[in-house]
């Protein structure tokens, strides 16, 4: 039982940054903006989080700084794409390039310094419960924030007027504009929110996942977060599920490698054969699994054209300039 709990905890830590960044990007894309700069904002959050934590001695200050810097960095994207109507794909990619360089520059002095981990939650009695104790009441703060964010965004998008407005902007900015909605203002806020989330995800990397700063430490997680949003067909709880499925495959393939086949000697024949097959696969193929799984799931959920259309922000990626 302990091992199962541990595996779940590992999965949660691996899934949290993906979830947080993807939830932010989901809001951005729901407003009709495609920001491919998640990786760049994430790494900026990571360096800012570590730096602020190191300089102030408080990882909480680090977490805050990660969000603020992520949001500020996304402002650059917002000004470019919203005020100057530049191409979103190219601007987002440039943002990632800039973020990777800038973070390396800012982090020069932080290399090789051990960081302080954000404290785990501990509630007497509750956290000591078997199994659920650690899973539900003993994790790091960002884990709880990620769940709260998912719930809040789901509520906001589908239960509030402002959420409805945001979605209508994503579906057709021209008609939203015709109705007198301040398209650009909404989009600015959405992009900033996305930036803060990506920054927070980066902060989780340098303050929880592996408390340290090293260059390029996001190692492509921003791209996976982008994938998750589409994987989830722009639904918050599906992003949640997707992040954990990703985490599961990711962690699972590490476990398959470490597992002792003899442990399965008494297991059902099929299970044994599956384990044997998984173990005999080259590790490159195991590493491909999350990506192939995304494609497969994508095929499965996209087959119903009408359902996909309903969720896809129709004006995603198109520049909008108010007309008069």
């Amino acid at each position, binding site marked *: 039982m302990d091992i199962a709990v541990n595996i779940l905890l590992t999965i949660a830590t691996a899934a949290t940054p993906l979830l947080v960044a993807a939830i932010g990007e989901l809001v951005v894309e729901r407003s009709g903006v495609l920001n491919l700069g998640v990786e760049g904002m994430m790494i900026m959050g990571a360096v800012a989080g570590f730096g602020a934590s190191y300089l102030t001695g408080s990882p909480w200050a680090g977490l805050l700084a990660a969000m603020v810097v992520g949001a500020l960095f996304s*402002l*650059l994207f*917002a*000004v*470019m794409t*919203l*005020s*100057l*109507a*530049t*191409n979103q*794909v*190219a*601007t987002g*990619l*440039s*943002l990632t*390039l*800039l973020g*990777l*360089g*800038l973070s*390396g*520059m800012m982090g*020069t002095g932080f290399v090789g310094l051990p960081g302080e981990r954000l404290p785990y939650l501990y509630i007497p009695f509750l956290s000591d419960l078997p199994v659920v104790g650690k899973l539900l009441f003993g994790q790091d703060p960002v884990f709880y924030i990620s769940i709260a964010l998912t719930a809040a965004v789901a509520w906001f998008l589908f239960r509030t007027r402002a959420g409805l407005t945001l979605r209508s902007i994503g579906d057709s900015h021209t008609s939203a*504009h015709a109705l007198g909605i*301040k398209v*650009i*203002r909404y989009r*600015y806020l959405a992009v900033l929110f996305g930036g803060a989330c990506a920054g927070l995800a980066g902060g989780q990397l340098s303050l929880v996942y592996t408390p340290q700063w090293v260059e390029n430490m996001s190692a492509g997680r921003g*791209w996976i977060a*982008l*994938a998750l949003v*589409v*994987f989830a067909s722009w639904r918050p709880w599906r992003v949640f599920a997707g992040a954990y499925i990703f985490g599961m495959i990711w962690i699972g393939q590490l476990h398959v490698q470490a597992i002792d086949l003899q442990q399965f000697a008494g297991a059902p024949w099929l299970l044994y054969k599956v384990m044997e097959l998984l173990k005999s696969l*080259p590790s*490159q*193929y195991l*590493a*491909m699994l999350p*990506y*192939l799984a*995304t*494609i497969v799931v*994508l*095929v499965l959920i*996209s*087959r119903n*054209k009408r359902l*996909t259309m309903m969720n*896809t922000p129709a004006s995603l*990626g198109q520049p909008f*300039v*108010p*007309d*008069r």
Partner: protein
Amino acid sequence: MRLELVKRPQRSALFSALSPFIAFVLTMIAGGIMFALLGINPFTAFNTYFVSPISEVWQLHELTIKAAPLILIAVGLAVCYRANIWNIGAEGQFILGGIAGSIIPVMFPTFESPIVLPLCLLLGMVGGALYAAIPALLKTRFNTNEILTSLMLVYVAQLFLDWMVRGPWRDPQGHGFPQTVLFNNSATLPELFPDSGRANWGFVFALVAAVAVWLLMSKMLKGFEVRVLGSSPRAGRFAGFSFNRMVFFAFMLSGALAGLAGISEVTGAINQLQPTISPGYGFTAIIVAFLGRLNPLGIVAAGLVLALTYLGGEAAQTALGISDKVARVFQGMLLFFVLGCDTLIHYRIRLVGLGAPKPDAVPAPKLEEAH
């Protein structure tokens, strides 16, 4: 104070020509401030960045080597993007092109004949095109989002290459290191002017591809079809164009060009397969495509400029002692200014005083004054 965009009735020819220069000047100013803060004379820095790389013949050669794959890939992507089809997996198509094109020199390392190289290049294009056909097939059959599938396939391609060079294709005489045999001479892309530098035929391919796609887009019916379907699929259907066929066409054309870039890089500059054969050309080419305004000829210029910033960045590292990161930040700055200034082609920018907003004005967001 705030800023408003007003759409021009048609694109401004003046700013079309002028905007790169405005961007350049702005980059100089912002970059100059950055370098000054780092304690480096801005003029020395600019000289190192933009002048030194093109002041020596060998560096001009290197410029074409760096620019060739960017241009080749970006030209193909431009067709996709014009058709409103989002292939962002050129990196994977590049890799698959490299792998497919290497079949002959790796499996038959002693086979030498004048037909080897053309076959390699052809196989490379086929490999890239077929790999690009996967997202096209998924999009047309299952309506999957091609941005995502093409991106996912990049990771799959990288891992597949990794497995190939560590496993089945590993050089038996290579001390176990992850690389294939070195290609023989008949599978090597010749250098253009071997006496003065390393530039190879890859750059010629890039120029030919750019001109061919430019002709296709501006002079042929297919180009019209691409543009119509890109701007309005509905109108395209009325005109009898098939969107699905366009998806395949655009993906496979860009895949073939990315594959050609891949195999040109492998047979020209690397001469064997390694675990990584691209430092992200497939992604950088997306930026190049937009910097070139999705125009094949503009892309040639954009590819050269971006290649120049890479070379300049290296020169700055050794000559000025700045780090690789400063070079990348400077590159990022340039990209942002160029993208921003291109706005002037389609829009006029009007500054509006806070005190007197026009009553019918749609409020535009405030801008940081420092921008």
